[in-house]
C-alpha cells in the first residue's frame, strides 16, 4: 500500500481512539462540574466501572490496535535476545505488560502506594524489553 493510504489508516485509528476517549470522559461522573474520578460511572451497574480502570483498559486496547496496525505494515520478524528465545514485537509487548504487573505488585508489597515510581520503573523495563529481549 502507498504511504498516503497508511497515513489515512493511522489518522482513522487515531480519530477512533480519540472519539472513544472523548466518550469515556463525557460518560464520567461529575460533582460540581469537576470529574469525580472514583465514583461509579454507571450508578447501580453490576460491573462497577470507574474512570481510572476504564482508562487502563482503554490504554491496553489502544496498544493492541497500534500493534496490530504495525504488524500489518511491518510484518514481525522474530529475533533472539538476552533471554535466548525468539520473540516478535507482540511477544515483547506481552512480556512488558506481564512484567510490569509483577513490578507494580512488588513495589506495592515493598513500599506501598503511590505507584507512580513503579510506573516509571515499568516504562524503563518496557523500553529495555523492546531493546534487548
Amino acid at each position, binding site marked *: 500500500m502507498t504511504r498516503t493510504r497508511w497515513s489515512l489508516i493511522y489518522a482513522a485509528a487515531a480519530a477512533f481512539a480519540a472519539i472513544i476517549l472523548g466518550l469515556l470522559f463525557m460518560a464520567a461522573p461529575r460533582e460540581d462540574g469537576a470529574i469525580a474520578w472514583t465514583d461509579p460511572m454507571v450508578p447501580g451497574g453490576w460491573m462497577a466501572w470507574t474512570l481510572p480502570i476504564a482508562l487502563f483498559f482503554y490504554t491496553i486496547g489502544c496498544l493492541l490496535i497500534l500493534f496490530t496496525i504495525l504488524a500489518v505494515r511491518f510484518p514481525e520478524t522474530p529475533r533472539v535476545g538476552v533471554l535466548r*528465545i525468539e520473540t516478535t514485537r507482540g511477544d515483547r509487548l*506481552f512480556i512488558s505488560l506481564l512484567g510490569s504487573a509483577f513490578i507494580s505488585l512488588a513495589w506495592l*508489597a515493598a513500599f506501598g502506594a503511590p505507584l507512580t515510581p513503579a510506573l516509571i520503573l515499568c516504562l524503563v523495563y518496557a523500553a529495555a524489553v523492546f531493546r534487548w529481549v
Partner: protein
Amino acid sequence: MDKTQNNRAWFLVLPVLVLVAFSAVIPLMTVVNYAFNDTFGQNQFFWNGLGWFEDMLQSERMHGAFGRQVLFSAIILAIEVPLGIYIALNMPKSGFWSSFCLVLMALPLLIPFNVVGTIWQIFGRVDIGLLGHSLAALGIDYNYTNDPLDAWLTIIAMDVWHWTSLVALLCYAGLQSIPQAYYQAARIDQASRWSIFRYIELPKMAGVLLIAVLLRFMDSFMIYTEPFVLTGGGPGNSTTFLSIDLVKMAVGQFDLGPAAAFSLMYFLVILLVSWVFYTVMTTLDKQEGK
C-alpha cells in the same frame, strides 16, 4: 516456505473473539473493577484504590494458602511425573494387554472430580472406609479429619491415583512414536537400559512430557473440588488451598474486593507459569525442527 499470506483470514477468528469476550474478557474486567472497590451488595460500590491489593499482599492467610498451594503442586509433580514415566516404560507395547492397560489407566480420568473426592472421603474413613479401617486394624493412628499430615497424605494419594494415568498415557503416546530403528542402533552399540532412556526415550518424550507437566501443574495449582469434598480445607486450615480460600472469601464471606484482588494476583502467577512453559515448548519444537 512459500505459503501465501492473506491477512483477511484473521476475520475468521472474529466469532471466537466475540465468544471469548463474552465468556472471559468481560468477567475478567469485572474482577479488575471489583478489586478496586468495596461493596455491601445491591451493586453499591465504593472506591478503595489499591487498598485490597496492599491488604492481600500483607495477609498471613493468603501467604499461608499460597505456600500450601506451591508445596502441593511441587509434591504432586515430583511424584506423578517420574511415576508416570516409569509406568509408561513398563506398559506392554502391543497386543491385548496393551489395550487392557490403556483402558484400565484411563478409568480414573473419567471419574468426575467430586465423585473422586467422595470415593476417597469414604475410603479413608476409620469407621466404615476400607483404607481407614484397615490402617486402624494394623494399629496405625490414621485419621484424616483431625491430623493435618494424614489429611495431606490422603489428598496427595488421591491426586496421584486420579492423575498419574494422564502423565503415563501421554508418555506412552510419546514412546510409541519412537521408530524401532533407534532401539536397534542402540542395541548394536550395546547401550545400557539407562542410556537408552536418557539419550533416546527421554529426548523423544520431552515434548509430551512438557505438556503433561504443564497440565498437571495448572490442574494442581487450581485444585478445588477434590480437597473441598475430602477435607473441606481442614483440619483447621491445613489443606486450604488458594481456590478453596478464594471461594470462602468471595462466596462465603462476600468479601468481593479482597477476593478479586487476590484472584488477579493468582491469575498473574498462572499466566506467568503458562507463558514460561509455552515458550520452552515452542523453543524446543523449533530446535527439534532444525
